[in-house]
């Protein structure tokens, strides 16, 4: 079953992949991807319902004209879903992993653990801007929006900025280590985040088992 939640002028597709009782697990897809059609095997052990969100310009969510994407806007996408479903644990892949980190810091009382996995768009544009370019592409009427791919593949992710969100999560979530790193790729921002006490490197099964029992 899918419903649409509103974030600004965008209708976001929020999919229930598996019904159940208890706190939901929310899946955030990678850059240029979309939510899976059914519960992936790698999260099958989660005890509660499993949901997935299509980011702006992806999957069944609406596609804006003229771009303007930022990772922070996608954090707002997730927050719109949290307003609907309440407390949740998040598994993010690629770009979704970075967004999971941001929202874990932005809504530490609602995000009950964030698991960061490999995938497209994990790296981003680095710590500082390189040579400046005016990015543009051709519009099309189906997802993924090429503007999302162009803008979010190289959005700046200063290491200290990312680490700051990890600290926010650690400070206010009440969870010992609210961020778990499953990803093997190590962009600079993720290397820095891993130095924070709020962050732990862990296998996916172990991370989910731990977050399944936190309040």
């Amino acid at each position, binding site marked *: 079953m899918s419903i649409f939640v509103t974030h600004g002028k965008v209708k976001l597709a929020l999919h229930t992949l598996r019904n159940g009782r208890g706190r939901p697990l929310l899946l955030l897809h990678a850059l240029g991807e979309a939510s899976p059609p059914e519960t992936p095997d790698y999260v099958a052990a989660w005890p509660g319902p499993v949901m997935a969100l299509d980011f702006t310009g992806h999957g069944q969510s*609406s596609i804006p*004209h003229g771009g303007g994407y930022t990772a922070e*806007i996608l954090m707002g996408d997730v927050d719109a879903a949290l307003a609907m479903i309440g407390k949740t644990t998040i598994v993010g892949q690629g770009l979704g992993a970075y967004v999971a980190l941001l929202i874990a810091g932005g809504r530490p009382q609602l995000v009950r653990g964030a698991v960061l996995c490999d995938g497209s768009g994990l790296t981003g544009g680095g710590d500082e801007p390189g040579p400046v370019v005016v990015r543009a592409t051709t519009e099309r009427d189906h997802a993924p929006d090429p503007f999302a791919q162009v803008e979010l593949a190289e959005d700046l992710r200063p290491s200290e900025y990312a680490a700051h969100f990890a600290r926010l999560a650690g400070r206010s979530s009440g969870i010992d280590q609210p961020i778990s790193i499953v990803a093997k790729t190590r962009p600079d921002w993720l290397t820095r985040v891993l130095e924070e006490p709020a962050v732990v490197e862990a296998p996916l099964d172990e991370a989910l088992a731990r977050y399944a029992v936190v309040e």
Partner: protein
Amino acid sequence: MTQAIAEDIDPFTISYPGARRPDRHRWVNSYGVHIHVCEWGQISDPPLFLVHGGSDFAGTFDVFGPLLADEGWRVVSWDHRGHGDSDHATLYGWDADVRDGLSVLDSTRPDPVPVIAHSKGGGMMLQLADALPRRISRLMIIDGLPTPQPAPDITNHEQRRMDEKAVGEWLDHRRKAASAQRKPGTLHELADRRAKMNPRLPRQWLEYLVTIGARRDPDGWRWKLDPAIRFGGFGPWRPEWSLKRLSQLDVPLFGMTATVAEEMGWGTKADSLRPYMPRGSKLLEMEETGHFIHIERPHEVARLALEFLS
């Protein structure tokens, strides 16, 4: 008729000395976002682009623009996305604003063109000049050169105080963005609100701006600015990045800074900026002047601009 309108005054009676509405209006489709473009002067004259700041609109050049047009320039300006009569876009971002600006330039002339930009517009055009130095022949920036301090009129271009409360408030704003509406009021009330951001500008000017930058709804006037836009800064951008790049700029540059601090001012100090100015550039500190230098002193700024352009 609502109380708000009943108390209001006739907008057609409002004028401002020297203000002249554009001679032409047109629209540019910037990747699906319709950008409202204004022009003053003869279409056969050489183009000169004016770029407004955050929360402003092209109509804020209604005095400054004609002064330049009357000296033989085809003056072209546009409302940024979400501002004035341009589309309220789905998303807003710095790169998108720069891209829209390039769309307007491309719709006018393909060769190098001079640009005068204020505040946020200055930052945008500095980035465009940095990326495409052969596209801009001369660049004049009015109180919009980089500063180590975050700018107040840019939405996502700097890191501000990003504590839990600030992040939560930004997310709260995003949750309300779908249903947000600007508060209606009388023309006088809207002028009062703008006076908080433009405390040094004449009351008559602020009332004149309402007749252009606001629309008259059945329950009162509302600023056209998209309520989804939130100023104050949110994101990873650090202003010192722009400052570091400034010295490398390969476009003739004339910078002007204000000296009187005010709400929308960038607080750029000429002395702290000088070490970063590119070789051959010019920097002028305008004494006893606030952030809206071209509105406070339009004739003097126009004269200096014309000298720079010549």
